[in-house]
């Protein structure tokens, strides 16, 4: 009964989404206020039914209703409650439901928090989001229904993919999806602005906070995903340029370009057409990412052939959304004329360079990700494109970008005296080059050019941003800066510092990590990176739905106890062995121990030990970036506008009453 209610709720949500997709846009076009008035009820109604549908599937998981095929395939009675809840988005059908539900939530939030935006604009925005909702719900109902029942329900379900049975995964997909779907708001604003023919600074201002929030979620999602891979996959890697990772990274890069380009559009009224195009591409890449990951095309191009209905629908949906918006763009873009002047040396040029580099980077990653698929589909041969390729493309492109970060922030809008700017930058340049070399020569284990590059860039970004900070204070100095800098300014400051932190993490971890695979007996110890690892054997233990070998490794430094680690090797009921590494996290280094196999019957085991300097800085940098985006989205000017709108609405209401 419950699954049927869920099914019915999905269909009703679709019906309301159709209303939401048609009437507000048509109403805004015709100036029909009663049609526009349907915006909020249809969006909130759709959200209500999506909540019911989502609740029904979650309920199915919680009560182990194995008559639902999706529940039977992805859970069993011994699965802990947390993973019953997160299992809802653990596979294809459920994750689509989750995606659509997130979209409903974003739509609902947009209808509730857009008082400062004209009604017709909100109607168009919500209408565009309605079109996307319709697409997803149709895809689900036609090809990937999560509520499909089994005629003969099994007594016990199968297992949730053991990789996904982890708290990190409880938050990774929701964050990522919040980001993906959040870009639909930026997209909808761009389309709405084109529909209305009013692409102006006001549009950029409305869409900026949403875009920042979406970007924040996407950043968090990627950071958590990387961190999860680091400790859960067991091999201490934090990024493998896997297509699945690239699928989330490409929209992130274009999204980064978008939040910078929106700044120019809002402050200077320039680059309007370009900003719209970026908004379209950012969301298109989010859609592409969702489908690339979930359609199975990455595992094998031929997965498409085995279930053509899904593939055909995806291609159709993508071409409607992307093709439709590009058509609209080509029609409207010619009418957009901005003739804002700026000199070659100016913040505008800096931000344009930022955009060009980011877009080129994203295109290159797309090329590397799709190339093997295309070759395979053409039957030309099977190749692998992996980290060596991506690193050799990514680093030369993004190193200049990092060098530009602080310079762009220091340059003024419109025009900047190159000589003055150069004079300002001379001292930071000397200090960062000197500092980078000094640290590499005297403080690091051995000299490496990559480390020099990373450190110079990181110090350079920090110093130029500090200079920016100092300049904001004017004559009052640092205290003045603390007072003068807006939240948006702080957002930029923290976001850019995040880049410096991230670079330090990446450079030092990739170059100075040490690792050792060894055979170790109970009572033996091994030294790595200045730490002694004493192995105290391993014993058999049982978890709720797995059996495990649990090792004990006592780590000490210069005879002093540092930490006791318990790496585990788990066997889940699905038969997949999983490593749970023992990790001691630290600001300057991580110690990472993974348990291998028993060797012989003397109680010896194979063990892998890592010493990873500064690896935390990679994720710390990401956290700084997302915190910066949050600050920027909470800038006071948005609240001021909202308050003003509210007061005016009240005044109007009072007038009407009188």
């Amino acid at each position: 009964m419950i699954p049927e209610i869920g099914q019915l709720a999905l269909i009703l949500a679709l019906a309301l989404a159709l209303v939401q997709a048609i009437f507000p846009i048509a109403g805004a076009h015709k100036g029909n206020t009663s049609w526009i008035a349907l915006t909020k009820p249809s969006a909130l109604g759709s959200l209500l039914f999506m909540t019911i549908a989502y609740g029904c599937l979650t309920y199915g998981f919680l009560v182990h209703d194995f008559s639902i095929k999706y529940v039977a395939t992805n859970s069993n009675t011994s699965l802990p409650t947390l993973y019953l809840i997160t299992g809802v988005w653990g596979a294809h059908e459920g994750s689509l439901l989750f995606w659509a539900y997130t979209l409903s939530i974003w739509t609902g939030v947009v209808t509730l928090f857009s008082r400062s935006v004209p009604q017709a604009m909100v109607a168009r925005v919500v209408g565009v989001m309605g079109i996307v909702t319709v697409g997803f719900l149709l895809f689900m109902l036609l090809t990937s229904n999560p509520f499909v029942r089994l005629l003969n329900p099994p007594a016990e379900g199968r297992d949730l993919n053991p990789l996904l049975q982890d708290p990190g995964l409880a938050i990774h997909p929701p964050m990522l999806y919040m980001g993906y779907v959040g870009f639909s708001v930026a997209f909808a604003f761009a389309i709405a602005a084109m529909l209305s023919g009013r692409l102006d600074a006001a549009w950029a201002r409305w869409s900026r906070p949403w875009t920042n929030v979406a970007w924040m979620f996407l950043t968090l999602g990627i950071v958590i995903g990387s961190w999860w891979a680091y400790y859960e996959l067991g091999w201490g890697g934090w990024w493998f340029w896997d297509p699945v990772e690239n699928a989330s990274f490409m929209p992130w890069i274009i999204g980064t370009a978008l939040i910078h380009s929106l700044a120019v559009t809002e402050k200077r009224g320039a680059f309007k057409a370009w900003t719209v195009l970026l908004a379209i591409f950012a969301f298109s890449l989010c859609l592409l990412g969702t489908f690339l990951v979930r359609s199975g095309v990455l595992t094998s191009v031929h997965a498409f052939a085995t279930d053509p209905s899904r593939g055909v629908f995806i291609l159709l949906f993508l071409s409607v959304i992307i093709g439709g918006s590009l058509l609209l763009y080509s029609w409207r873009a010619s009418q957009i004329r901005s003739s804002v002047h700026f000199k070659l040396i100016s913040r505008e040029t800096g931000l344009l360079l930022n955009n060009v580099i980011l877009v080129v980077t994203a295109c290159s990653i797309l090329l590397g990700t799709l190339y093997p698929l295309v070759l395979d589909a053409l039957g030309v041969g099977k190749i692998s494109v992996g980290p060596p390729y991506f690193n050799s493309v990514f680093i030369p492109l993004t190193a200049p970008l990092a060098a530009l970060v602080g310079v762009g922030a220091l340059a003024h809008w419109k025009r900047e005296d190159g000589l003055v700017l150069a004079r300002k930058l001379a001292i930071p340049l000397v200090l960062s080059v000197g500092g980078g070399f000094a640290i590499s020569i005297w403080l690091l284990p051995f000299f490496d050019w990559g480390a020099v590059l990373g450190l110079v860039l990181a110090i350079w970004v920090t110093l130029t941003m500090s200079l920016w900070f100092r300049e904001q204070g004017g004559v009052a100095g640092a205290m003045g800066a603390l007072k003068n800098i807006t939240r948006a300014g702080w957002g930029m400051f923290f976001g850019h510092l995040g880049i410096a932190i991230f670079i330090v993490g990446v450079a030092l971890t990739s170059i100075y990590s040490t690792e050792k695979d060894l055979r170790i007996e109970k009572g033996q110890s091994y030294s790595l990176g200045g730490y002694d690892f004493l192995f105290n054997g391993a014993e058999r233990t049982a978890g709720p739905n797995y059996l495990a070998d649990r090792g004990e490794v006592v780590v000490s430094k210069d005879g002093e106890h540092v930490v006791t680690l318990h790496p585990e090797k788990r066997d889940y009921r699905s038969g997949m062995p999983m490593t749970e590494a023992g990790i001691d996290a630290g600001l300057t280094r991580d110690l990472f121990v993974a348990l291998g196999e028993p060797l012989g019957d003397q109680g010896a085991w194979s063990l892998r030990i890592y010493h990873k300097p500064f690896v935390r800085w990679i994720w710390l940098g990401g956290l700084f970036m997302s915190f910066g985006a949050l600050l920027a989205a909470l800038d006071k000017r948005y609240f001021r506008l909202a308050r003003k709108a509210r007061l005016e609405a009240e005044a109007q209401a009072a007038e009407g009453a009188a």
Partner: protein
Amino acid sequence: MRRFWFFALLLLPVLVLANIEAYRFDDPAKEARYRGLIAELRCLVCQNQNLADSNAELAQDMRRQTYEMVQNGSSNEEIVTFMVQRYGDFVLYSPPFRPSTALLWIGPFIIFVVGVVILLIFIRRRNKEPEVELSSAEHARAQSLLDNKK
């Protein structure tokens, strides 16, 4: 101790079902080369994993092969050539430059040049256009749009 290691190694294929092997190298440089190689060679039966990260049986065999070749003094090129002959280009995470992969390797460079050229044309053309100053009426309209409709 040494004999014990030898013994453990002999038993490896039987005992080790997964991924942490206690290979011993007579030279740390060889160990570093081994690590580099297994990081850049692909496990052919896995979805997307290098030899270092995989616990598939094939990956173990290939690691063993790599280890033996490194230990016996083969150069990196020899080992890579051997692997490609045996398993094809698919085994390399850094695809070789061939007609079919030319676009892959040159592509980013082309995209970059195109991007910069477009950027330069854009800046040039923009600064040739006369700057349209908003009339005071337009200014007022813009201001009222920004203020009122929010």
